[in-house]
């Protein structure tokens, strides 16, 4: 099939970027959707699933890029720079060296060579065939297998070490674009004349990435190989199996980490002089706190998505509890690592809900003082899917005086002065009133009621609804329809690898099912996973 399509290659130069349609003399042609560079967490999870969790992935990745609100969408636009490839090469060799070390070789290599100091093509072939299918997310072609067996053999003979050959070929597979990019190959869709669909392998890959944040397992690949995955029932069987499996937790974590911008934690730091309770441990724990809260609410309780913003239930460690200034009784003996302890806030506590957690209020604050504008912008963009325009080029900041100005004691005072400028008012009025409601949380997420000796006013408004403080904000947010439509849009984009098109029926269906499920995020993910939008590329409209 692929062979007939390649004929059209000469016409491709004319293709418009981002549109799946290219003109051809003979017939309109559908192009494959963009390959997606796998994320650092998918890399790690794939290695853990393929080679085992005892293989350490140490090293750095190329930074991710956000597009239309998600790193997952950025992945379809980025390539790999030469510095980036150097990093992937380092990572690949670190993993490959562990695969063949004394601790792992017996478990991971299905045979023992006749002579450990020389090539053993038969054994290499067995290894490459089985591991290659998992790494490339599809069966390798005979030519690919032969090529790798030969490369491993040459390496083994040069270095007089069979396992060095295996290591070389593992490293080779791990820097291949077949691994580093999720390929989304297509084939004609027998069910819809003229349309194309993802191949079975590409479907399996999409599902594994979307729901489990990893490479497809053997059962998914088998469903692809048997064609089962192309039937409605077959697809449902896989989706149901995946949604109810333990690995779903990893998938939910990966999605929310992406949507909430948690990759920024890597470069987040606070001034220890101002925020001594914000230790590096607390930084890592604050990310984990929110993910635990989400997993508990979304996966374990299958609660209403909106309640995430008001839920009193969370998990704390002693360090985090100190940051939030709440008592947390830990009875485990002295000297044990800190444990996660379920914690519920009293009704009306401003620290309830995930917006009040350090993963939001600290992540979106500079290292020294808060930025209500930054928090408001993050809330609009990450949680409500609303665009906030960038600041204009020629702004006079003369009204924003320094913090020691006796007239403008609080951040609210300073921003109000700034907002009186007509030029600034337009944007700041959509960010600041919601950001100011979170001023009870300092730059590190600590709870406070005063700033520079003045009581903090936390009144605000969101889309015309007035409220007071974090509790009021969470309630208004809870009832804002943008909250649920945004997460539906993000889940859809995350699964489909593209944002929903205006008026797209498949997305409308997903949204309806989400509403019907009382905003159950697992149901949302299930619906998206079943949607044709992920797998079918409609026939191009004839001009």
């Amino acid at each position: 099939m692929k062979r007939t399509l390649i004929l059209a290659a000469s016409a491709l130069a004319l293709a418009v970027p981002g549109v799946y349609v290219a003109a051809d003399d003979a017939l309109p042609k559908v192009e494959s959707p963009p390959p997606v560079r796998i994320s650092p967490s998918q890399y790690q999870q794939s290695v853990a699933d393929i080679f085992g969790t005892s293989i350490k992935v140490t090293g750095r990745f190329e930074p991710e890029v956000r597009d239309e609100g998600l790193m997952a969408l950025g992945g379809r636009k980025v390539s790999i720079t030469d510095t980036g490839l150097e990093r992937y090469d380092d990572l690949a060799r670190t993993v490959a060296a562990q695969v063949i070390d004394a601790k792992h070789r017996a478990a991971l290599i299905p045979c023992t060579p006749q002579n450990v100091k020389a090539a053993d093509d038969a054994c290499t072939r067995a290894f490459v065939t089985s591991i290659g299918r998992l790494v490339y997310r599809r069966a390798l072609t005979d030519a690919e297998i032969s090529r790798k067996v030969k490369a491993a053999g040459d390496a083994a003979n040069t270095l007089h070490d069979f396992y060095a050959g295996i290591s070389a070929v593992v490293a080779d597979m791990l820097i291949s674009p077949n691994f580093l990019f999720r390929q989304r190959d297509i084939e004609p869709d027998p069910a819809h004349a003229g349309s194309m669909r993802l191949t079975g392998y590409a479907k399996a890959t999409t599902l594994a990435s979307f729901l489990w944040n990893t490479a497809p397992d053997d059962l998914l690949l088998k469903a692809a190989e048997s064609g089962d995955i192309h039937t409605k029932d077959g697809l449902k069987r896989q989706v149901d199996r995946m949604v109810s499996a333990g690995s779903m937790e990893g998938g939910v974590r990966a999605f929310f980490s992406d949507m909430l911008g948690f990759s920024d934690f890597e470069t987040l730091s606070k001034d220890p002089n101002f925020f001594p309770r914000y230790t590096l441990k607390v930084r890592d724990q604050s990310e984990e706190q929110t993910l635990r809260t989400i997993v508990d609410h979304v996966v374990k309780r299958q609660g209403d998505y909106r309640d995430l913003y008001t839920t009193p239930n969370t998990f704390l460690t002693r360090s985090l509890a100190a940051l939030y200034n709440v008592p947390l009784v830990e009875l485990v003996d002295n000297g044990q690592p800190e444990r996660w302890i379920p914690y519920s806030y009293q009704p009306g506590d401003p620290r309830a809900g995930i917006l009040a957690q350090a993963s939001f209020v600290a992540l979106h604050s500079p290292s020294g003082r808060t930025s209500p504008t930054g928090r408001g912008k993050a809330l609009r963009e990450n949680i409500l899917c609303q665009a906030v325009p960038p600041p204009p080029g020629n702004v006079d900041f003369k009204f924003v005086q320094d913090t020691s100005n006796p007239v403008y004691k609080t951040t609210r005072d300073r921003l109000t002065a700034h907002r009186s400028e007509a030029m600034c008012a337009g944007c700041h009025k959509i960010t600041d009133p919601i950001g100011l409601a979170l001023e009870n949380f300092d730059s590190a997420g600590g709870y406070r009621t005063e700033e520079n000796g003045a009581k903090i006013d936390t009144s605000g408004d969101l889309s015309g609804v007035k409220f007071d403080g974090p509790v009021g904000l969470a309630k208004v947010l809870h009832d804002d329809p943008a909250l649920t439509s945004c997460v539906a849009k993000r889940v859809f984009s995350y699964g489909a690898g593209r944002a929903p098109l205006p008026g797209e029926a498949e997305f409308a269906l997903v949204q309806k099912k989400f509403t019907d499920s009382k905003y159950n995020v697992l149901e949302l993910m299930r619906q998206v996973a079943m949607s044709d939008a992920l797998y079918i590329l409609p026939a191009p409209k004839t001009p």
Partner: protein
Amino acid sequence: MNLKRMLRPSSSVLAAGALVASAIAAAPAHAETRGYVVSWFATATYSQDFKNNCPQNKNGGRYGNSVKALMTIGYTEEEAVKIMATQDALLGPEYMKKIESRARVNGKPASIYNYPEAVADPMIELSSGKYAFGFDLGSKNNDAKFEDPETHLKVDNQLWRAVGCVESFKAVAPDIPYFEDLTWHLMIDSAPAWAFQVTGDDLSKDGKVTVTFDKTVQHLMRDASGNVMTNATYVIDPSPRSHNVFQGEIKDGELRINSGNLYLEGELPYYTEISLANTHMRIKQESDGKLLGYWGGYTDWKKFVYMYTARGGINGEDVVGMYHALKKLADYNPDPKSGQNQMISTAYRMEATTVYLATTDGKIIAKPGSLPAPAAEKVADK
């Protein structure tokens, strides 16, 4: 041992504890309790004026003590200096063995640490300065008293007289004497913390308070600056061994305790325990909400020697000299038979950080908060 029994809260203190516990239960609903952990602790030194304290300056540091130690096993000073030139910072084992076993018991070599009485008193220099931190514990010997550099009141602190001219105790707060510092900062990440609660009807103003000391089951938690983290939660060790209840008063923003026994079990080599008789305390709140203050009273001088010996060894520290100095200066609780005082007056400096305190059943019994602040004009006292 009598003394030990006396210091343990076995009978009298325990009874007091029970009494107060019921008193708390019966207290009015609006009684409030603040929680603290001891975040800095050391012998209260006053080395600001070392020259006047120790005009002879003869105790010497590691080098001088090593030379003196060599002379105790028969070398001349000249020879000892020559030997020292061949040694690294520490005296080698070939010398140490002889030095440490030079005591003679029934004509046989014995350890000077086990038999300090069997070695002559080397007469270390004692502090002859005017100042020491602490409290007037009521001793009769007025001539032996110091003056507190802050309160300018009379002070019983004979332990300071003994250690005041020893190099490793030359520390100006917030520095901690060397060996105590080693212990404290190395061990607080694993040793259970000491906590206390201040309970009163209205802690926004001066008045009577109850102060309860306990050991916790958790070690101190550090913050991003390496200090002790504020507002963490600690669970009180339910064992009564280290449970102490005192009646005190906050006056002019200063919390004072003027009697009673204190016993806190420690898991740090230098502070295997803190035990005080006739306990006195004065504690003030700093501007950052931390408490800073002094604890004083009488402690068992032999236990102090034990802690000191366990750390210092002879390299740099004249352990025998310290033994004899403390024995001479001990000023409380004479042995009924020999008349030798078994306890010595002393003082500690401590800082405490606000925390939550809980019992093992998960109940929060104390919260972070503030105490009445000292009047500002007091600072201008000098």
